């Protein structure tokens, strides 16, 4: 269990990147990229976890004390999620235009930018 969470984080990064490498469709590549990014959330939250500690929200919850799960990594993961979603939106928009101009989204068929 100790290293399982970190391993899953690395696995997501690897499997997402592998998805891009073997992709035959740019939309698929963009979605795979977001899988790779989800590895970063898992890593951050795993780093900040403390066994048996409650969430760092005190209203109506636990009495204020520092024995809570690390809120800093949660704030980072939140920022990360927003960034990921907006960049994914931009990438999908670009994919739509690639298709409109090239009539294909297969990377193997997009051969104009060479050399």
């Amino acid at each position, binding site marked *: 269990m100790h290293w399982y969470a970190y391993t899953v984080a690395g696995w997501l990064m690897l499997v997402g990147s592998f998805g891009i490498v073997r992709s035959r469709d740019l939309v698929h590549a963009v979605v795979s990229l977001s899988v790779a990014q989800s590895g970063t959330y898992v890593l951050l939250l795993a780093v900040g976890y*403390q066994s048996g500690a409650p969430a760092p929200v005190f209203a109506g919850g636990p009495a204020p004390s520092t024995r809570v799960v690390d*809120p800093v990594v949660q704030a980072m993961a*939140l920022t990360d999620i927003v960034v990921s979603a907006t960049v994914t939106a931009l990438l999908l928009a670009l994919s739509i235009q690639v298709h409109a101009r090239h009539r294909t989204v297969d990377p193997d068929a997009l051969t104009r930018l060479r050399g």
Partner: protein
Amino acid sequence: MSRTVRLVMFGVAAAVLAPLFGLAIAGAPPFGTASHPYRDLAVAAALRNATANVVSSINFDQRGLDTLVEETILLASVVGATIVLRASTGDVRRELAGDDRALAAVTLVSVAVLPGTLLIGLDVVVHGHLTPGGGFQGGVVLATGLHLLYLASRYETLERLRPLHWYRWSEGLSTAAFGGIGVGGLATGAGFLANVLPHGSFADLLSGGTVPLLNIAVGVAVAGGVVVLLAQFLDQALRIASERDGKG
């Protein structure tokens, strides 16, 4: 490069990196450790500023600069997607096909759910400094809630209720408000993005100083931004066709 060469190359790289990563995590503190030095400081700081949701305190007070930049990224992406998906020469606006009309049952459910969703969104924004959630989560809920209108009736109804430049304005203005509150902190001499308002008493609706204000600014910015983003995609999928397409 051929597909095989590409996959082999990636495989070689992965074969080097996977064991290195393994060694690295073997040197990390065990999962569930009790030692979190930054956490200790951050929780104390949040309590000092009477912000019950420590994550909100970090996002909007302690590390507010990160969030300001995050809102700016959202703005850049929304403007970017608007530019990339703008109608270009050769594009024509299609009439909507008949199947874009919704079923009566769906309409009923959506109309019933819509006000509740909007209320939940507002609630999540306003209580962001107290309970889980905040401007970002609430903003997304508000934006998606508005799109229930599309399920509820026809795309035209949504289009009429969605003068896009309003949403773009609200996004721009609220991002500017975030930056402006930051500059306000500078002007008082307390520092950029400093929490200069009275902190109130712990766990009250009016507590946390600037945190709830920034939460609201982010809520408006995110709601506006997501509406504009989804609008670009919906327009592309439903409305815009290229002259070069067949019957489409």
